Each structure stands twice: as structure tokens, then as C-alpha cells.
């Protein structure tokens, strides 16, 4: 079965600092998908990115970037020049072979002004 570990329960940084959120997953599948979602204080889960296991290229979208390392089963997420609006709980969610998302407890990110 798939499993996800987000070891950082809570991270607090000052605005404009860079921050990296770690995600390590376990899977026996050779083909799989990984997702990141953001849950701001309003509570609504916001989709950020979907990555398949065939594509190990890092991805950058504005201030966000993702580092996928299949060899270490990690899919880390970096925010550069953080802003207060980035404060949220971030979830890394692998998808298992039954197309179910596997959810960890998430990482709470606090950006202080």
C-alpha cells in the first residue's frame, strides 16, 4: 500500500525567506502519480500540481518549484520569496493503484510578516 510522510508538522519563517516542504512516499507501483494541495485557513483544498512517475524533471511555476527524486521517493516543494498569503497547510498526496489519494497529516506553514 502507498504511504506518505511529511515529517515537518509545522514550519514558521519570516516573509521573503525560501522554504522547502518535504514529502517522502512509499509505493510498490512502478507507475504512479503524486499531487500537492494547499489548504489555506479558509479550509478549501487548492490543487497545486500533479506529477507522474515517468517525469523526473523539476518543475517551476512562479515562486513555486517541485523537486521529484524517484530514487529517494521524494517529492519536495519549495516556495521562494515566501509571502504571508502562502500560510496554509500543505498536503503531498500520492495516488495508489486504485486511484485513491493517500493523505498524510500535512505540513502547516506559517509565514510571519
Amino acid at each position: 500500500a502507498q504511504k506518505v510522510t511529511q515529517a515537518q508538522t509545522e514550519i514558521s519563517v519570516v516573509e521573503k525567506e525560501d522554504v522547502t516542504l518535504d514529502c517522502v512516499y512509499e509505493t510498490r507501483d512502478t507507475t504512479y502519480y503524486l499531487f500537492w494541495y494547499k489548504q489555506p485557513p479558509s479550509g478549501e483544498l487548492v490543487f497545486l500540481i500533479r506529477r507522474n512517475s515517468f517525469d523526473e524533471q523539476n518543475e517551476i511555476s512562479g515562486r513555486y518549484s517541485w523537486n521529484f527524486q524517484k530514487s529517494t521517493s521524494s517529492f519536495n516543494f519549495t516556495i521562494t520569496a515566501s509571502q504571508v498569503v502562502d500560510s496554509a497547510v500543505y498536503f503531498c498526496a500520492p495516488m495508489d493503484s486504485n486511484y485513491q489519494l493517500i493523505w498524510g497529516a500535512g505540513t502547516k506553514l506559517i509565514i510571519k510578516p
Partner: protein
Amino acid sequence: GAGVSQSPSNKVTEKGKDVELRCDPISGHTALYWYRQSLGQGLEFLIYFQGNSAPDKSGLPSDRFSAERTGGSVSTLTIQRTQQEDSAVYLCASSLEFGGAETQYFGPGTRLLVL
């Protein structure tokens, strides 16, 4: 277009009462999912629909929970004889279809408090 909508946004009920939670998916999305999120926790999968069919109901916590979807659109999650441990945020999501690693898009949730 419009996103996933859920109603009510908040619900306070007394222990033992029945509640109905509603989810309206994104237009054209055939798959619909229900999750539960307790305070400070990740999401617990409850059930999914492909069209009007729910192939796997094993995620429902007890037989007090049921869900239906009619017309391939709106879904209702019903909790009978609510208990205090049912207090949580109930989230609904939809995707174009089930399978194929389609992205799930979430609604704002219904915050249920059982007194």
C-alpha cells in the same frame, strides 16, 4: 466555470439527529468523492461515485453513513443518529472521471458540529 459547491457551509446538530450534506460537482465531472477531515488531521476517504454508481462503500465509517447520487450530478451524504465523533469537516471533490489519475477539485466543505 463554477467550482464544486457544498451546502450547508456549517451545521450544528444535536446528538441523535440525522443530517444531510449536499455536494454539487463541477459541471461535466462524472466522478465525485466524499472525504472527512477531523481537526488538524489529513483527509479520510469515505466514498466515491462514478456516475451514479458507488462501487466501493467500505470507507464509510459505519452503517449510519450513506451517500447517494442521482442524475450523475448532485450527491447527498447522510449521517443518521449523529454522534459527537462525527464532528468534522466533510469535503467533496469531483474529477472528470474516476481513474486515469484525474485531478480532484475540492469544494469548501461542510463543518459539522454534533453537540
